[in-house]
């Protein structure tokens, strides 16, 4: 039931341009996607960028900017339905609480809305890397309840792979755009630089692995936290049991001596259960680690292919 959705050439070009001009370094650029929903299928036809959060523009009103932009675009017949948003990413790190919250608010309003993640570094390596994600219905439920405790998550059986689901993208162009593309191809004098077949990969690999290691560290910290919590919980249970036993013993002793039994005390108040560590962060880190691993595996398979090609080339000449 994950139908691919359509995106036009204009949106792709605008996103590329936005990052290229405004987002150097590891800055994240964001923007809004506009389009329409046609028979359950999403079609993204335009987009506009969001200004960066600068320090000197404290009184900049984001909502006002958005409203004005959409009003103006409506005047020129551009679809003004807010169907999603896009964000650039740095080596694939985008699974974060902020993303979840924003996407939830979008999906709450429009069920089919997506977040487009554009990876400029991967794109510069040879092919356009644009992925679309949506929150799974299970995760939507949880976000709606705003209940991120371990019990709720356990009940819903959410694993890190069930948080975001990828939606396939299909580029659809009108005939006129096709004519334009034909024109561009004939007239453009830019040489074809085959970055895709570039053999040097160690830089990218190093960076990805470094980010992965950071996340794994974070993950192990969370695991340690959880383990301590579990241990504390069991210790507390034991203490409770011991206390009850002692109580029992005392009560029987007292009864045998003919004294009234001690009043029942509220054990729960005495033994307050330790705070369960929030599971949401662990889930997010796990999701992010998973994403990094997927990217790395895709990258290595690509490079293996290229290495074998180089071998074939060498084999013929040597």
């Amino acid at each position, binding site marked *: 039931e994950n139908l691919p959705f359509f995106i036009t050439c204009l949106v*792709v070009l605008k996103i590329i341009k936005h*990052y290229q001009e405004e987002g150097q370094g590891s800055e994240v650029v964001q923007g809004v996607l506009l389009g329409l929903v046609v028979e359950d299928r999403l079609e993204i036809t335009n987009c506009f960028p969001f200004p960066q959060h600068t320090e000197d523009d404290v009184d900049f009103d984001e909502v006002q900017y958005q409203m004005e932009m959409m009003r103006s675009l409506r005047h020129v017949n551009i679809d003004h339905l807010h169907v999603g948003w896009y964000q650039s990413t740095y080596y694939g790190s985008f699974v974060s609480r902020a993303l979840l919250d924003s996407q939830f608010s979008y999906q709450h309003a429009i069920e089919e809305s997506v977040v487009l993640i554009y990876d400029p570094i991967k794109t510069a390596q040879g*092919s*356009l890397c644009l992925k679309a994600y949506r929150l799974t219905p299970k995760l939507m439920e949880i976000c709606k309840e705003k209940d991120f405790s371990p019990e709720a998550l356990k009940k819903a059986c959410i694993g890190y792979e069930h948080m975001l689901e990828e939606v*396939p993208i299909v580029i659809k162009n009108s005939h006129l755009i*096709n004519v334009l593309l034909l024109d561009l191809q004939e007239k453009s004098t830019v040489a074809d630089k085959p970055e895709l077949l570039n053999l040097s990969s160690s830089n990218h690999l190093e960076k990805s692995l470094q980010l992965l290691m950071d996340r794994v560290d974070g993950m192990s910290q969370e695991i340690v936290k959880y383990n301590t919590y579990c241990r504390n919980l069991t210790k507390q249970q034991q203490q409770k049991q011991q206390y009850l036993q002692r109580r029992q013993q005392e009560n029987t002793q007292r009864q045998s001596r003919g004294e009234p039994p001690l009043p029942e005390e509220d054990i729960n108040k005495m033994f307050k259960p330790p705070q369960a560590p929030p599971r949401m962060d662990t889930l997010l880190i796990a999701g992010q680690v998973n994403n990094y691993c997927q990217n790395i595996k895709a990258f290595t*398979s690509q*490079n293996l292919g290229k*290495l074998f090609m180089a071998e074939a080339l060498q084999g013929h*000449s040597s």
Partner: protein
Amino acid sequence: PSSGATARIPWRPALSFSSSPFVTILHFLYKIMAVHGPFVKIHPVVLASIVDSYERRNEGASRVIGTLLGTADKHSVEVTNCFSVPHNESEDEVAVDMEFAKNMYELHKKVSPSEVIIGWYATGYDITEHSVLIHEYYSREAPNPIHMTVDTALQSNKMNIRAYVSSQMGVPGKTVGVMFTPLTIKYIYYDTERIGVDLLQRTRASPSRTNGLTTDLAQVASAAGHVQEMLSTMLSYIEDVLSGKVMADNSVGRYLMDLVNKVPKITAEDFESMLNSNINDLLMVTYLANLTQAQIALNEKLVVL
């Protein structure tokens, strides 16, 4: 008519050469005194945006106009963005929503403060009299604005994209006219833009005008296929030369020599060891990635217990 009115003289190629020598002299003078060099650099996103606005035009409008944004320096102009401006056009008058244009420009400035108004565009093939008026308005916004026309009606079976700069002409003291001189257009791309456009080109081949994004390994495969095609073209050319069908060309021969020499000459053992160490690295990374994924999956299951 007073000397301030602009005569509506649409620019025709024949005008500069067959009519009065005075016009020819002015044309020549303009070329010397050009404020903008002869180049206009356009990014594909601008053209896509123009085509899109044209497709969404109001009922009854035959063309759309809009503002061009970009950067200008002494030698050339670079157009990087644009937005359409609502306007009404009829036989005798034209009305442009200037408030809107100003507003949009302010909004755009918030995102990219370095972009300035450098001109305007209109779809359609010719420069009409109304264009002159609109151009005058834009002259107030930018020094020496560029006017770009995109022929979306495909009058000559192609989408003709042209750019002009205007200049005054005529005898001072009498009627002055405005002349639009064409500029050369160059399409420029950022690297990532070119890669994006390459992907977009593929929608031309499919009947439903659609194209999905492929997986990584498939991309390498298609790039390899591409190289293979190029190699077979070259091979057939070489065969032809060898059998005498085609004249041998020295420059092509030199390129071929370069190409063959580009494959690095490494001894077999060295290459083996390099290849193996690289492959080992990649395999190890794949193994570690798989291990990590298994680990977090396990952790997940244990916690849920």
